[in-house]
């Protein structure tokens, strides 16, 4: 929904400024426009290969190449690239162990995949490529919502498969006074069903707000020219550092919350 309106807002602004990008009619939302590279229609649905798809393929390819190439000449004493990929593995494995316990380790591959996918998409969105521009896939709510819905449905399915009806004890915490129990149960159910929304909006809002802010500051640099542009440029560099931190932190938060939801589902009976 919000995707669509950004696109229409950005296209309207582009049309107002005579159709050409940038220049006089600057719009910080222009970076979120989706371009169809290869239009594909599938059963009446629009399944085109867009710039969003291209950046997703780039992120996936980059992570896969990094993990395969770094472990190609793996030895007992790790070289520099090998230890880098071992650090990422250990980082995520510790995260799963701490938040979901050893029972969560069978689901380590999916958490690792989600973490690396979100992290790489957040990070390569920071790098402008000539001819392609800079596009952050996670700044579109449909992408993050699909990821969050996948996590939420998967975790619920795991919980029901593992505990059966006892899974619904998750909504009825023990040790609560009987008078408060109906209220607490309603609150628990609402909070459970808003999980995919809060998980996706958190990532999307952070990425979108950060990139809009960068674009606005970038326009200050261009607008003040070679004489006055140095001041906002200094801020730009600091903001870039902050954005790289946020890019990492949001991938981490997404993965940690997935682990916590998984832990809830795995230990639903003992609440």
């Amino acid at each position, binding site marked *: 929904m919000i995707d669509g*309106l950004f696109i229409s807002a950005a296209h309207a602004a582009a049309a107002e400024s005579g159709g050409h990008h940038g220049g006089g009619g600057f719009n910080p939302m222009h970076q979120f426009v989706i371009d169809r590279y290869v239009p594909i229609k599938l059963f009446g649905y629009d399944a085109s290969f867009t710039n969003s798809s291209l950046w997703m393929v780039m992120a996936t390819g980059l992570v896969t190449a990094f993990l395969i190439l770094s472990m190609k000449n793996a030895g007992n004493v790790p070289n520099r690239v090998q230890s880098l990929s071992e650090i990422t593995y250990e980082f995520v494995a510790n995260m799963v162990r701490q938040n979901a316990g050893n029972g969560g380790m069978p689901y380590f591959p999916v958490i690792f995949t989600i973490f690396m996918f979100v992290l790489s998409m957040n990070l390569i969105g920071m790098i402008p490529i000539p001819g392609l521009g800079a596009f952050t896939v996670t700044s579109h709510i449909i992408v993050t919502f699909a990821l969050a819905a996948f996590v939420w449905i998967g975790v619920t399915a795991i919980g029901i498969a593992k505990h059966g009806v006892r899974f619904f004890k998750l909504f009825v915490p023990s040790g609560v006074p009987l008078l408060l129990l109906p209220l607490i149960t309603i609150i628990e159910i609402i909070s459970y069903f808003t999980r995919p929304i809060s998980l996706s909006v958190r990532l999307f809002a952070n990425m979108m707000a950060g990139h809009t802010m960068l674009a606005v500051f970038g326009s200050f640099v261009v607008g003040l020219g070679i004489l006055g542009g140095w001041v906002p440029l200094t801020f730009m560099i600091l903001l870039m550092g902050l954005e790289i931190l946020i890019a990492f932190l949001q991938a981490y*938060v997404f993965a940690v919350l997935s682990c916590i939801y998984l832990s809830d589902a795995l230990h639903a009976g003992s609440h």
Partner: protein
Amino acid sequence: MDPAAAKLIGAGLACSALIGAGVGIGSIFGNFLSGALRNPSAAPGQFPNLLLGFALAEATGLFGLVIALILLFVF
């Protein structure tokens, strides 16, 4: 009131969510610092929790920003 003006006022009011985010982030870092100064050896172990709390508090403020954007562009 003119609907366009009400829309802009509503979007501005939605940004007041950032008050809560500011208070939250400040309290997280302040409490971490006071705890870390009391027991510096335990501080590094709690650093991931600090970042987690920071990210969660910051995201709450950004929900307000999303509501402002919805008000501005959807209605």
